[in-house]
């Protein structure tokens, strides 16, 4: 059995330990906000927080996830929307929206360790792929989220 702590809930799962966390979140737990994009940790659509750090869950096994605190997009704003989510809404950042859960988790992780990122910091840390080209709006939204988080 694999024990997982996801969004504050404990789960006991009869699952192969080498299964990527992504597929357990989506197919076992029904947390479909975390997306499959490439399967090789290139695009970041599957980004979740593992002990607060943005992690690409398609290349992170449930065995590695055991004993750690997992936060997904569903948990990020469960009580009230996170500053990043509020900034994203203000900016109307998403287009198709498919990559946005991962982008938002990456941005939230960035702001947790760097509350006032520069454009260069954002370029370096926000490496997830968006095919709709929402980058300019996301960049502005990260700066806005940094402001909102300080209010």
């Amino acid at each position, binding site marked *: 059995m694999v024990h997982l702590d996801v969004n504050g809930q404990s789960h006991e799962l009869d699952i192969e330990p080498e299964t990527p966390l992504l597929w357990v979140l989506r197919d076992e737990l029904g947390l479909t906000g975390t997306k499959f994009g490439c399967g090789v940790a290139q695009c970041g659509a599957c980004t979740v927080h593992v002990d607060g750090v943005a992690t690409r869950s398609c290349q992170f096994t449930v065995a590695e996830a055991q004993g750690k605190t997992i936060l997904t997009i569903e948990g990020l704003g469960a009580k009230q929307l996170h500053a990043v989510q509020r900034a994203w809404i203000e900016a109307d950042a*998403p287009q198709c929206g498919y990559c946005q859960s991962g982008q938002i988790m990456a941005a939230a992780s960035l702001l947790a360790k760097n509350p006032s990122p520069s454009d260069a910091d954002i370029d370096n840390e926000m490496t997830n792929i968006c095919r709709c080209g929402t980058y300019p709006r996301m960049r502005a939204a990260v700066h806005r989220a940094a402001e909102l988080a300080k209010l």
Partner: protein
Amino acid sequence: MNAPLTRRLFVTSGLTLAGGIAVGVFGSARAANGPQAGEPWSAETSGPVAGEINAFVVVEPDNAILVRIAKSEMGQGVTTSLAMIVAEELECDFAKVKVEYASAHRNVNEGAPYREMGTGGSSSVRGSRVLLQQAGASARARLIGAAAQRWGVDAANCVASAGEVRHEPSGRTARYGELAADAARISLRSEPDIKTPDRFELIGTRAARLDTPLKVNGEAKFGIDARLPNMVYAAVANCPVFGGRLRSYDESAIKSRRGFIAVVPVENGVAVVADRFWRAKEALAALPIQWDSGAGAGTNSEQFRADYRAALEGSLANAVDKGDAKGKFAEAAKVVEALYEAPHLAHAPMEPLNATAHWRPDRIDVWMGTQFPEDALKMAAKVGGVDPSKVYLHNCFLGGGFGRRAVNDELHQAVQVSKAVGKPVKLIWTREEDIQHDRYRPQAAMRLKAALGDDGMPKAFEFRTAVGSIMRSLGWGTAANGLEPMAVEGLANTPYRADALRVDAALKNTHVPVMFWRSVGSSQNAFAIESFIDEVAYAAGKDPLDYRRALLADRPDFLGVLDKLAAEGDWGKPMRAGSARGVAIHESFGTIVGEIAEVAVGKKGEIKVERVVACVDCGHVVNPLTVEMQIESGVMYGLTAALFGEITIRDGRVEQSNFHDYQIARMADAPVIETHFALSGGGKWGGIGEPGTPPIAPAIANAIFAATGKRIRSLPLKNASLGA
């Protein structure tokens, strides 16, 4: 799409049109009545829906307005812009508007109340605006009629605004929610007039997108998120060489794996079915498969490149022959000639292709994101052997489309697998399957020539292209007379003035399937012609923007865009060493877009696009926010292709497999993008989903030339050596 509006369409009462289908609401968390579920696929029910005034408009008892969206939301914002068009006429509070997808089942089986539901060709707004205005106006007139009937007054004395009808002489009012049931039974003698643009109040405003709140918390449901009781999963291997066939496989090698259910041969490949996707994918990787590679097995991109170049010298089909091009070239003071090349490109939408099918002998349900839900419905019916009246297509949010979701290869396979295993099946292509089994933007070679007079101005142009035929590749018929419009779009309709123009094309297909890729023929033709005009300008000793102005002197719409672009884009202002601006302007899908790219080229030849200024003439704008977003999106999509995009073939198969070798622009590659408007208005309504893409590649290449003196004529730019 351009069929004239039947003015009777909304005259009959909603109840007689109904008997339709309610699909679940996925619309507005911004609506005052609170967030709706993010699922566009709640259970379909048959029979009339209370408060349905016509096929597009339902008024709920709490005064919420439900607008049905008959186009697919793939990021371009149609759920917002199309709802705005209806609400403009309905005179309701837009904050109370929510949206759901129109039912493809209803459209296929009940006389097409939504007309064509296909989403492509940048056509959603311009193709359905009049219909949607009429739907809103008609609903408003019937709400007024219901109120007048209730009060026993003349409808002419009643006005509708902000979601209520008011009888002016008495001051009586009624909310739309109270009137909806009666309004559904009102018949109109004639359709009310629709507003002319000068009377628009909501259209033209920067309304926030209705889908945004659902897309920041994981709530928005894409096809890949469908979950059904007893659902199983399928992973697919398509034949590695296009046109090849599955020869055999050894099921015994994977039968004992946990969760294994079946191996199912499918269209173009083989699927492994298991109780979880990961298990299906891993089992497929362990399945020994033999393929017959077929005739394409010995081919490669270098050979295609030589073939396309050679085709330019062979027999071509004539698309345009205006004036005496031959004579003008014979007497030219100077001839400029250049060859441009463009590679195959994959669409690579972020959501890998997938479809969930539930086949039963008497009914099929499908959940997916498709640009063409009616085609998908009919495909499921045909493949599954079930009458279309018993097939339900639950369209979802599309995780990107860009043309890839115009055909439904994944659905064909999903229906086959569901039928074979007798269960609902979610079939997913991995990214590797997506990159290696796309229907690609065709490879092309384009040779452009200009005959210049003594004044440096062109007397004649001769444009030749050799490119794959999309129609032939899709099996949608043979290209008539060896031509198809997309092969020469952007060339045949060039706005640049010359006494003579000749355009010829050689449609030449390989075994590599080709299709519509955001902006289609303009994606390669704009690169050629806008690079070429730049070259001609330099050959004439003129500034590239001034030269374009001179060639566009009789096109005030183009000049309006160019002049605003030059001003906003700081054309002619100094830049630091190693940086330069490039300009390009192109009309596609009825819209003119000019772009200036500011590009820095580093000492080692590294290219950084720092700023892009765009100027747009799409005639009218429904929502400047979504238009700006589409320009940004079109620029980034084209920028990725210009810098990195290249699908190459070796031994008949695609060499690239995932984002490590099919590189996509990331945040660090993204320039500042500014969008400006130079709207010509009048009767012009241009598309917006694609026209931002064509100018960016030539604008960047032209900037690189201005910065380095090196002219790049073959995409992608990453292959050029620009280092010192």
